[in-house]
């Protein structure tokens, strides 16, 4: 029942995006009794509600859906699973009693600050976008500098444009998608400027959103200053020099009234931090065990709050698992403790989960530091997997079968990504299809 808030649940999920909804479904499937999903927005669905382009669900549903359609499917499933989905409610804190009861403080206009007791909690708060502050662009502070996600909200949810002549800094997926969207709405997109020598978005988005629309992508280039008193009037851009700094000799001025930033996402872990949960400095999400449990027993995490995903389908898979474990935990089922710590080795930026146990199958998500092709993932002396290419923008997913870890007695297991013999060159122009995953 929508909107009903009980006092006691088996599992409470914080955040009703795709991760939160799937986690609750996973918990019910695992046999948990009452489950609650709390979201602060007027409707569950998370960021997907503003992603009205299609391309969602290719992996999970084997069909192409828009973001709101994808969210709707999960919302309906959640209701079928008899899950309470309570919108317009904000989780402002979580307390843990001495007897292990978790008390989730929910703020909303009808109940005030209401405490909900539960056995397991799933954190699914999603992520936020990096802002101008994170990269410190000098210049003035006019209107017209905004994140690509906010622009997406203006266009798709409010029906307004962020400006007429738009430059985009960063080639993250949201920026690429917005480049296309704005051109279709009649705006002029003067270019996408990317600091790295490769795009930070999915290859398919570079092709479908920029190339097909003739929008120039300037790699190894950055914005060096912003001009304009009230509103942006121009930006300055410069190519990166060999010393890793912008080459100001080759700086040029680009007139525009808007600068969209698509420079990365950061998991929203203020709530996790307030609980004292251990966070990973690289993912900026919680450190989790193979059951996606955080350092605080009975508190699980999934979706973009755990690490930034590029495809919602992977979010769903991960969240179903987190929910299942949370549901089991609520019923008193305890798994054997993990006994192996994963170590990110050569060309591995991070891997999730952070620990494994022998005797079970594991799904590993990871990202590389630098593009490479062809290459292989080397999991200690236990397994190898060939990939046609890896790029930082595309998450790598693979499974480790139970037999691979049989008889493994070390405390740590190192994962490397290595070039295949004689093929160590960087794949900055990687355009292969589905190399990873």
């Amino acid at each position, binding site marked *: 029942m929508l909107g009903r808030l009980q006092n006691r649940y088996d599992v409470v999920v914080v955040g009703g995006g795709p991760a939160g909804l799937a986690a609750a479904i996973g918990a019910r499937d695992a046999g948990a009794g009452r489950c609650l999903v709390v979201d602060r927005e007027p409707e569950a669905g998370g960021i997907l509600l503003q992603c*009205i*382009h299609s391309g969602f669900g290719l992996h999970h549903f084997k069909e192409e859906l828009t973001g709101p359609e994808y969210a709707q499917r999960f919302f309906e499933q959640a209701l079928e699973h008899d899950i309470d989905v309570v919108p317009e409610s904000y989780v402002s804190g979580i307390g843990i009693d001495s007897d292990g009861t978790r008390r989730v403080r929910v703020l909303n206009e009808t109940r005030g600050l209401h405490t909900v007791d539960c056995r397991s909690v799933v954190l699914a708060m999603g992520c936020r976008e990096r802002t101008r502050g994170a990269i*410190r662009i000098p210049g003035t502070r006019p*209107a017209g500098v905004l994140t690509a996600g*906010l622009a997406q909200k203006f266009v798709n949810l*409010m029906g307004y444009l962020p400006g007429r002549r738009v430059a985009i800094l960063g080639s993250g997926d949201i920026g690429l998608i917005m480049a296309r969207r704005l051109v279709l*709405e009649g705006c002029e997109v003067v270019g996408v400027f990317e600091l790295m020598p490769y795009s930070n978005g999915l290859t398919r988005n570079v092709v479908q959103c920029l190339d097909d629309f003739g929008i120039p992508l300037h790699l190894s280039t950055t914005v060096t200053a912003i001009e304009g008193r*009230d509103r942006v009037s121009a930006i300055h851009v410069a190519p990166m020099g060999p010393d890793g700094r912008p080459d100001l000799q080759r700086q040029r001025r680009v007139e525009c009234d808007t600068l969209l930033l698509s420079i990365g996402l950061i998991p929203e872990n*203020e709530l996790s931090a307030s609980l004292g949960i251990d966070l990973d400095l690289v993912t900026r999400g919680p450190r989790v065990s193979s059951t996606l449990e955080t350092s605080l027993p009975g508190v699980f995490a999934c979706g973009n709050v755990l690490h930034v995903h590029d495809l919602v389908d992977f979010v769903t898979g991960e969240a179903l698992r987190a929910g299942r474990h949370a549901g089991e935990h609520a019923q008193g089922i305890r798994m054997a403790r993990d006994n192996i710590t994963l170590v990110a080795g050569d060309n591995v930026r991070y891997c999730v989960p952070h620990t494994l146990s022998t005797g079970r199958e594991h799904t590993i998500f990871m990202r590389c530091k630098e593009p490479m092709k062809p290459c292989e993932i080397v999991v200690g002396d236990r397994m190898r997997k060939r990939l046609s290419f890896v790029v930082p923008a595309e998450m790598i997913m693979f499974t480790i079968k139970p037999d691979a870890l049989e008889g493994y007695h070390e405390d740590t297991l190192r994962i490397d990504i290595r070039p295949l013999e004689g093929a160590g060159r960087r794949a900055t122009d990687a355009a292969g299809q589905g190399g990873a995953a």
Partner: protein
Amino acid sequence: MQDRLYDVAIVGGGVIGCAIARELSRYRLDVVLLERNAEVGFGTTKTNSGIIHPGHDTPVTTLKGRLVVRGNAMFDQLQRELNFGFQRIGALTWVRDEADVPVAMDLIRQGLDKGVPGLEWWDQARLRREEPNLARDLIGAIHAPSGGVINPYEFAFALIESAMKNGVELRVDCPVSSIGTRDGHLEVGTPMGPVAARFVLNCAGVHCDDIARMAGCDDVRIVPRKGEEFMLDKRLHGIVRRLVFPLPNRKTKGTLIIPTYDGTIMVGPTAHDVPDKEDVATTNAGAAEIFDYVGRLCPSIHPSDAITAFAGLRAVSDTGDFIIGPTSQKGFLNVAGIQSPGLTSAPSIAEFVRDLLCDEGLELQPRADFDPHVEGPPRFATRSHEDQDALVAADPRFGRIVCRCELVTEAEIHAAIDHGARTIDGVKFRCRAGMGRCQGGFCTSRIVTILSERLGIPPEQVTKRGGGSWILLPMDDAGGGDEAGGTPDGATGAEVEAC
């Protein structure tokens, strides 16, 4: 409205104009404040170090040296009346070379003579104990317990609100373009028509020379001196507990480490004269200069800790001092050259100007019904759980979080608008919505919608800070949109509801 003759017209709604307006509102006078921006306090008042200086470093031979100590002492009562963010955290003026110790001792003596309370010398052991993160080679510091930090924009907003509560009229979006005489009084030209007044006060900050020229007084010269400031990551909260100053030099108070009222550490400012009165751009050179200096003072601070930066312009006069007083144009008074410690001195400048006006023939009859109090913002985030629950019960809008980073509720956005906010920045600086980590990424669209409803204007007329700082445009404004065609993969915006 043209027929009305004001007793006093104040040109410029920075902290100085607002403090004077509030001071004059104690008396039975007709006062109008004319501000060119969409709100008060959007000039230098919003972009400074936010320090209430103890005042020992400015010699008593200067006007600013005399006004600063009195100004500082007035803040406790002002804070009780006006409820802005202010705290006396103490200030340290450090010394690194033995040769500078006598200079420091002179400052202590100068300060004590002027009545700066509690000044004392801390030796190296004491300094290290109190501020363990400062460089080990500092040999001691002057400690001034009356040094404080303030949210300067909150102060200006509260001053004007108090003034208006007591009868002062505020006109915003009202740039003054001429000042003349007519029928024995002064006449101030604005886009909304002339404003007639017996007295006109020139409180236009870096534009004071332009305003003086309009009145036919060519005796004020103002050079804008830019100061860039850098806010640091939360990681550094508490790295110093007090304001950290070097010994002053002739031009500035030097580069400081400032634990702001909100807890964020700020470093700066630079001090460079610039030709352009609108030049508030931050620069890489400024960042390099500040971090180079601060790194030697507090080694745990790195350039990569900067999360945001801004710049403000000091209105430096050719005398180097405040220029406050009557001019060759009868009834026209300058309150010019108000550089640092102008914020600190604002309340004492207001008293000083009041007395000058009295000398010039303005009758001051106290109002019996003067109400010195204004309510502070509700600040949901800092309340106890019981209080929060009670607030929601009383007003359900407290149950709707708009800015999740700073935990600002819809009720607080409305309160900000009730208390005068007209722009996104006005809301932000009153209730902190959009000031947090996501810098408005989540809440801007909500705030635009609320402002548009409350002000009765379409969203495209909502601005960041007035003037041409528009936020968004209607769909058909980009020229030749192709909505019907939808995107190549079949999605169209048509079926999506507005939020």
